């Protein structure tokens, strides 16, 4: 444990468990969440949702509902199509068919919970009363209830009479067949991951505020990316025809000029954007195949261009009660509420309830993976063949959905291991289920499958799980070396070290004896290990290897840092923290650069009016490296500017100026120092153009530099009750390296939280649909999330690989969740190995444990 710092601290903040700046506010109920927004005259929205998995909508009768008390308006799918543009997937990947769809469904519903109308009323309760009076006639269609249905060409297509396989791709790395032919053994297995759901404490929510006087629009939202939400809403709302937009532009020529100007500015700043995008050929192909797609896109783009600033929203995200990926999308509901508020010219609130959130707020995982490993008898991996089927449900998430995840799964599959050759086939399929969204490591199936498979290979070959890993993991002496899929493992890739340390801490070599001794006493124990690495944010070429053409957009992190007129410092970030503690960590980073206490720093975020533009927001374990990096460099530049002024004011040379605990002075004479407020006064005197309240403003962008990886090995012990199938976790050890740690308490919290969700995935959580596509997990009595009682103490050991790289911070947001399911499942299989048990799916409730152990018969259940 490092000490907890309270109050002003003159030394270094980075590396210390500084108390979170956010906590007093959040813990005393002073946080401001979307549902805390109360506006006078504000209306409330609720959605009429499909009770069927798959059906034609024959008729919607809303007359009775309109007469229900408090109802202001009801917008059906058909009307919505006149108000908004369809969502048009912009991921141009070869072989991808990305369906277009509207905020509400008008002709067909494709999953239980599919919204078909939005009711706007004086209160949410009144809106729900009215929903009961809306009569929708459905004609049901056979459901495509799971991936095997989707692969069955006799099942009805979800989209435009196309195959339910929406994306089909194959990548070959090296001479795969030769490697397999030369192997001692080829070991194959099929794995599945069940569908789970993010379930943050705060569900989705949005308040679209329309200023009655100016009609300016402010969107209060729980979002992971304020700018993304702003521009998606601006792009897809206020549907106008192409001629109408042209007419608007003809009248408002300044809008065209302004657009041309800003486009030119962007292209000057980022000349690489001028190069033809690698996505171009695929995009052209998509447009050729479907010209209406091109027209839809042009119509939306032209409409966006024609809009006045006042017709585009500003997004304001305040406190957010978690997201885990689900709020990284702009949802159909967001757009529907926005459109309704625009239509009525009144502010509208929508707070998703838990039932809606379970049904349609975002699901994840749901993959089937067939894997073959070609190995030598000593465990050396010669190559692997992987075939992935990813069930993304009915509507792809926007803008990041299953097809994108499939590419990261492909790139990440080798992990930190030597994989000489690899064949990867992938399919993304459509089914009558809810939308697949990003969830804490949306590519995590690669770790689960690879780490489970290593255990299976070890058992087949009669060697230990540790041995098979040690034989194949990339050692530090081999670095740098590229993964077979492209991205570079740089010299800080310490996965090997985490594995070696974990093996020692776990006393792994003595485990078999300990396990046998316990079994003799009637105790069934297991130990599992799993190792992984995550791109946090990954090497510079990571995005290009995943989705060619996406690198330029994803790579840039901007920040502003301002010395304000009163001597306070504002760090202004495009990050939208939703539990990660950026208000603390970014302040720590800036404070160290500036030599001021963190109390003198305010981190401002979430407001598109003031934050620098970027589409990525917070996600992908990127903040520590990207935001930590840019804030480091921007704060350094600000310090230079402060020192310039101080040197003048104190008639000293720049080199002699020191800033300590906010005191700016000449080295050796702290008593004669001045404050940042004094500097601010002088700066404002010099710069008459400084913005109101500001003295010095610095803006920087950072491309992530060397980027890099976070890596870890987890060791998990279990005790299984073979009479009841209950699994206890007496010990859990993590050995990890995320580079230099900004705040150890926050890092450990991220790791523990991720592991809790990983344990949830194995022992408790499953989103269930039956064979007819009926949704069965609509409450927290059906979908079980572990509580503090279910989570063991987690022992965390940190490694830091020394490096010359500045701001050597890497993310830890996702790793716990990515690797825990493998470690825990490996432990359970290890406990049951003497019974011949092999585990293919991480979901292991007590009845499944007893079925695997042969204690009870396997029941055929309709639920999958």
């Amino acid at each position, binding site marked *: 444990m490092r000490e907890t710092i309270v109050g002003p601290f003159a030394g270094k903040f980075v590396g210390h468990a500084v108390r979170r700046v956010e906590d007093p506010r959040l813990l005393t109920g002073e946080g401001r969440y979307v549902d805390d927004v109360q506006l006078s005259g504000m209306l409330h929205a609720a959605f009429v949702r499909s009770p069927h998995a798959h059906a034609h909508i024959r008729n919607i009768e809303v007359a009775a509902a309109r007469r229900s008390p408090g109802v202001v308006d009801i917008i059906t799918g058909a009307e919505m199509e006149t108000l908004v543009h369809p969502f048009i997937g912009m991921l141009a990947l070869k072989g991808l068919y990305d369906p277009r769809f509207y905020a509400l469904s008008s002709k067909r519903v494709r999953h239980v919970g599919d919204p078909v109308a939005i009711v706007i009323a004086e209160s949410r309760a009144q809106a729900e009363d009215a929903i009961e009076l809306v009569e929708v006639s459905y004609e049901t269609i056979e459901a495509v209830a799971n991936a095997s249905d989707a692969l069955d060409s006799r099942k009805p297509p979800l989209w435009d009479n196309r195959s339910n396989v929406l994306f089909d791709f194959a990548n070959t790395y090296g001479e795969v067949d030769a490697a397999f032919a030369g192997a001692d053994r080829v070991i194959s297995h099929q794995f599945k991951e069940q569908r789970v759901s993010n379930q943050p404490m705060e569900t989705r929510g949005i308040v679209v505020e329309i200023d009655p006087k100016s009609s300016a629009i402010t969107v209060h939202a729980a979002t992971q990316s304020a700018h993304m939400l702003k521009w998606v809403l601006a792009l897809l709302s206020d549907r106008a025809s192409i001629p109408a937009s042209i007419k608007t532009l003809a009248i408002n020529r300044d809008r065209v000029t302004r657009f041309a100007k800003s486009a030119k500015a962007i292209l000057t700043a980022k000349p690489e954007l001028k190069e033809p995008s690698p996505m171009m050929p695929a995009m052209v192909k998509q447009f050729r195949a479907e010209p209406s797609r091109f027209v839809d896109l042009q119509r939306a783009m032209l409409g966006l261009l024609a809009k006045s600033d006042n017709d585009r929203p500003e997004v304001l995200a305040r406190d957010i009660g978690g997201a885990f990926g689900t709020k990284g999308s702009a949802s159909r509901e967001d757009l529907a509420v926005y459109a309704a508020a625009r239509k009525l010219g009144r502010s509208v609130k929508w707070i998703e309830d838990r*039932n809606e959130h379970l049904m349609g707020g975002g699901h994840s995982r749901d993959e089937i993976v067939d894997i073959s490993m070609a190995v030598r008898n000593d465990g050396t991996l010669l190559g692997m063949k992987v075939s992935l089927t990813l069930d993304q449900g009915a509507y792809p998430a926007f803008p990041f959905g299953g097809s994108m995840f499939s590419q990261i799964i492909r790139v990440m599959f080798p992990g930190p291991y030597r994989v000489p050759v690899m064949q990867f086939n992938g399919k993304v399929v459509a089914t009558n289920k809810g939308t697949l969204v990003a969830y804490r490591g949306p590519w995590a199936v690669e770790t689960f499958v690879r780490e489970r498979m290593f255990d299976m290979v070890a058992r087949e070959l009669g060697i230990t799980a540790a041995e098979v890993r040690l034989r194949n993991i990339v050692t530090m002496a081999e670095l740098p070396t590229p993964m077979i899929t492209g991205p570079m493992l740089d010299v800080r890739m310490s996965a090997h070290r985490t594995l070696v340390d974990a093996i020692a801490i776990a006393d792994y070599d003595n485990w078999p004896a300990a396990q046998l001794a316990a079994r003799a006493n009637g105790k069934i124990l297991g130990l599992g290990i799993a190792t992984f690495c995550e791109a946090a944010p990954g090497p510079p070429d990571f995005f290009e290897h995943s989705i060619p053409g996406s690198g330029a957009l994803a790579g840039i992190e901007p920040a502003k840092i301002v010395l304000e007129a009163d001597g306070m410092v504002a760090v202004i970030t495009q990050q939208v923290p939703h539990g990660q503690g950026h208000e603390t960590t970014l302040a720590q980073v800036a404070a160290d650069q500036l030599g001021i206490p963190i109390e003198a720093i305010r981190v401002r975020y979430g407001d598109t009016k003031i934050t620098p533009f970027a589409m990525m927001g917070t996600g992908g374990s990127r903040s520590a490296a990207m935001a930590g990096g840019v804030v480091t460099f921007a704060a350094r530049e600000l310090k230079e500017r402060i020192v310039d002024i101080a040197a003048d004011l104190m008639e000293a040379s720049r080199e002699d100026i020191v800033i300590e605990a906010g005191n700016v002075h000449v080295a050796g004479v702290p008593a004669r120092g001045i404050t940042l407020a004094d500097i601010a006064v002088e700066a404002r005197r010099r710069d008459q153009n400084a913005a109101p309240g500001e003295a010095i403003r610095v803006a920087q962008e950072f491309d992530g530099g060397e980027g890099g990886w976070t890596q870890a090995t987890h060791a998990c012990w279990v005790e299984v009750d073979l009479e009841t199938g209950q699994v206890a976790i007496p010990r859990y050890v993590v050995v990890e390296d995320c580079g230099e740690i900004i705040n150890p308490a926050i890092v450990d919290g991220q790791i523990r939280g991720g592991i809790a969700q990983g344990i949830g995935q194995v022992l408790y959580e499953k989103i269930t649909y039956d064979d007819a596509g009926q949704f069965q997990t609509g409450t927290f*009595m059906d979908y079980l999330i572990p509580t503090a009682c279910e989570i063991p103490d987690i022992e965390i050991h940190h490694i830091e690989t020394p490096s010359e790289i500045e701001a050597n911070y890497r993310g830890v947001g996702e790793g716990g969740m990515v690797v825990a399911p493998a470690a825990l499942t490996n432990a359970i299989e290890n406990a049951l190995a003497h019974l011949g048990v092999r585990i293919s799916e991480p979901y292991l409730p*007590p009845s499944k444990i007893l079925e695997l152990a042969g204690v009870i018969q396997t029941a055929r259940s309709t639920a999958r």
Partner: protein
Amino acid sequence: MKMRGFEYHRAATLDDALATLSEFGDDAKVLAGGQSLVPMMAMRLSSPAHLVDTGKLTTHDTITETDGMIAIGMRVTHAALEQSALIATAVPLAHAAAPHIGHRAIRNRGTVCGSIAHADPAAELPAVAVSLNAQLVVRSTRGERIVNAADFFHGYLTTALEPDELLTEVRFPKRGAIAGASVHEVSRRNGDFALVGVAVHLEFAKPSTKKGAAVIANAGIGLFGLGGIPIAAVEAQSLLVGNPTSDDLFAAAADAVMRNIDPMPDNHATAQYRRHVAGVLTRRALADATNQALAAS
């Protein structure tokens, strides 16, 4: 998840509550702790037009002993049950069951009578009532009647209660001199409703001077989490009574339990699982109750 509108009545007296219930009959529901009713209303699974809140009837929050019975008033919460010294000594089975009910926050509001009136088949207290053959005191403007637990539970969430009736009191028999009680259950998470559970109460005959296994004089076994209603394991009970305890006897009782139940599957556990674990828990609970009784005697 907003409930439909309803009219709220706060009963000032028991008679007041009974009068309101009699006035509105089927359209009214009693609001006790609200821990089951309120979520059902929020999900619009239950939408009474009138709610009769018993919260102010504070004179009914006592636990008293009369004529060898322990009477629990309708405002006694699970937490009060858990903490009552009288319950701990006189009705050890109820004492053992209480900590299994939800979480502490739920026990602070949920009531013993509410749980029994609600009759969730996975709830602990209905099974305790069946196991001990409790007497349920039922009042309406038409008068008072006493229903035996064996006749009270009719089906899933349905009981012998008429719409105008209040369950005002539960009476448990006081334990005998040599007695032990044990509740074993498996739930997915701490505080969840049981996937399957067993509530066992054993009474033993006065030990004979001879050394040897103790002889069971009286046995109550209540099963919960199996769907439908809480179940008294009648065959297992009669197998036990009159016999000295042994592993074989307990195994035979467990077999009888498994033979006689027809558990319902759901997404949390299969029928096979519930049947198997009902047997396992019966054995464990019988052994625990025996050890407890004999250790104390």
